[in-house]
């Protein structure tokens, strides 16, 4: 069992948890992820590592409630435990590897974080800061209430630019608009990392291709085992089929087939919706979603 030692609600529907997991905390690097399973009946959910404390042996995860499983997970509290918590999985971010440090130092780097993607961006920016590299960060959110980690990020980022789609905080507009603005003002970047919803990463890549900035994205397809044994998370990158869980999750964003990846992400949409309804309605659930046979 893996105990939750801290829980915090960061914003509407966004939760943070510190989970004690000795081996993961010892071995992990920024860019890697874990798979959590709440209990016997739970599904395996991939979550990017958002922070880690090697001494306290904890891993910080941040998740947004988007369906039945994450909704159920949000009901867990300090003192509760995850039944399973495995990792670190995937390859570390290439920026955050000691051997590449000299190369990384030569780069002018910008991160673009969308929504809950702020969480996986944070450990990378923090790692760079600790190694003497100031990266700029653009942090985007739909609205002010969904923003989190602004102060934490400010401490580790070179410059922090916050955007909201509705203009309720910071720059009025999306992250790509902010990047365009900065480039227009004369900023130059030769490396971009974009993490967020697939649609956002797709639009960042369209822009950075035009601006000629190499861009790395962290892909979040459906996963089951997370160790390379099933191919649920497969993606087309360039001309090759890659498994995001072992070959990624980070890839050259200009080579990723986002349209295909987004279609694959929708595979269980009906099932997810049904599971959500069942959870919300509890005992009063009678299969109103018309598919599960509850009203037969």
């Amino acid at each position, binding site marked *: 069992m893996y105990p939750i030692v801290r829980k915090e609600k960061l914003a509407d529907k966004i939760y943070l948890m510190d989970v004690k997991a000795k081996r993961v905390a010892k071995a992990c690097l920024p860019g890697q992820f874990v798979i959590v399973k709440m209990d016997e*009946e739970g599904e*395996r959910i991939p979550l990017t590592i958002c922070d880690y404390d090697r001494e306290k042996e904890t891993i910080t995860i941040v998740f947004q409630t988007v369906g039945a499983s994450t909704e159920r997970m949000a009901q867990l509290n300090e003192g509760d435990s995850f039944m399973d918590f495995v*990792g670190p999985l995937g390859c570390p971010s290439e920026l955050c590897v000691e051997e590449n440090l000299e190369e990384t130092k030569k780069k002018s780097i910008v991160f673009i974080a969308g929504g809950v993607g702020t969480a996986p961006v944070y450990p990378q920016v923090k790692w760079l800061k600790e190694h003497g590299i100031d990266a700029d960060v653009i942090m985007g959110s739909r609205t002010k209430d969904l923003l989190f980690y602004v102060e934490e990020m400010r401490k580790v980022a070179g410059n922090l630019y916050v955007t909201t789609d509705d203009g309720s905080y910071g720059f009025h507009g999306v992250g790509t608009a902010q990047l365009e603005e900065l480039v227009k003002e004369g900023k130059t970047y030769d490396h971009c990392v974009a993490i967020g919803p697939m649609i956002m990463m797709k639009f960042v890549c369209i822009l950075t291709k035009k601006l000629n900035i190499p861009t790395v994205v962290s892909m979040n397809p459906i996963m089951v085992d997370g*160790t390379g044994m*099933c191919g649920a998370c497969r993606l087309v990158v360039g001309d090759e089929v890659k498994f995001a869980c072992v070959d990624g999750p980070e890839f050259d964003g200009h080579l990723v087939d986002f349209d295909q990846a987004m279609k694959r992400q929708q595979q269980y949409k009906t099932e997810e919706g049904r599971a959500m309804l069942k959870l919300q309605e509890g005992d009063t659930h009678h299969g109103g979603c018309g598919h599960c046979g509850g009203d037969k």
Partner: protein
Amino acid sequence: MDVMKRVPVAEQEAKVRATNFEEVCLGYTEEEAIKEASRCLNCKNAQCMKGCPVSIDIPSFIAEVKEGNFEAAYQIISKSSALPAVCGRVCPQESQCEGKCIRGIKGEPVSIGKLERFVADWAREHGIKPTPADKKNGHKVAVIGSGPSGLTCAGDLAKLGYDVTIFEALHEAGGVLCYGIPEFRLPKQKVVAKEIENVKSLGVKIETNVVIGRSVTIDELMEEEGFEAVFIGSGAGLPRFMGIPGEQANGVFSANEFLTRNNLMKAFKDEYDTPIREGSKVVVVGGGNVAMDAARTALRLGAEVHIVYRRSEAELPARAEEVHHAKEEGIIFDLLQNPTEILVDENGWVKGIKIIRMELGEPDASGRRRPVEIEGSEYVMDADTVIMSLGTSPNPLISSTTKGLEVNKRQCIVAEEATGKTSKLAVYAGGDAVTGAATVILAMGAGKAAAKAIDEYLQNA
């Protein structure tokens, strides 16, 4: 009684079982087992034993069954096999022990697998466990992977007094016994969990959720955690795809994904969270045991299921009993046919599969006649789900993170056949990680041989 014929075994009726995940074969009763055991000729130079990869003393255990001494029979099997309830169910006996049985020349061979299964089930129901070692010898050995080879190696070493820890990447121990082979062939709670408990009762520790190469490396286990020897039994879990157009469409799965969702994550049960695609018309590509398992699983989830295989029935690599069961349940076999393209609708979902007919040409390197496409014979079959069951290869994660571990070009770990010795000192390997996808019992044989070699190494070190 006709001694040429086997005592038949009770099975769930095909129409009934096609709608549930309960075990198909119900196994022998005591009377039936004694009757079947009496067909054994108790050969002096027993050919059956030569067909068994772990050389169980088959005539002796059958002789005990004949006398009704089931516990004695269990102890004889236990000397050679750690997982008899599993092997009795999933071994391809027709090409192993039973294939060599003298009775089989003129009539039907003795049902050795069913008798082994009976003995193991009887022992479990009567609470009989294997005997642990008298005392520990103080040496620590790590076993990577809790599938058949790892469990066997760990069990044998524990019996010799070693302090053994198994590291497993998934949340449950058992490897393919857990995620791959379905409930209707191998019940998880009743059989697999109990056999794993037996291995634990020998003193073996199992640490789940540890991915070797990520959570910790083999070098760290040896340098920092005090393990003096390591056995790698990590299997061959990396699925192959065909590389044909449309393969990334929604509704195309590897058999590993489909079976893992169903068997390990229990997607077929309502109270479990993991979803699965039921499909209404499912095409399974391939002809091995995994293809049969995926097809019969899809059928039980309510679909019409076709198996598309590029060779003919005689070349089907699956166990004869599974092919027979699949047919009885209503799986449609489209043999000598091969997919060339998966057709995709505008939303990215599978809508059909383009298939070409084949004929058998000259024998290839494997000795099997090579299938050749018949030009112009392509046709389209409607389908909403395609399951690729083309075999698997070893995951490169362990070999790429372990210094000095040699692999061949198929990513299989290079190891001596008789001992499992690898290119790295004190590191042994066996099972599918070395051979590529093979059988449960071969993996167990390799685990056994490696345990013996590790013992010799550590006693002389």
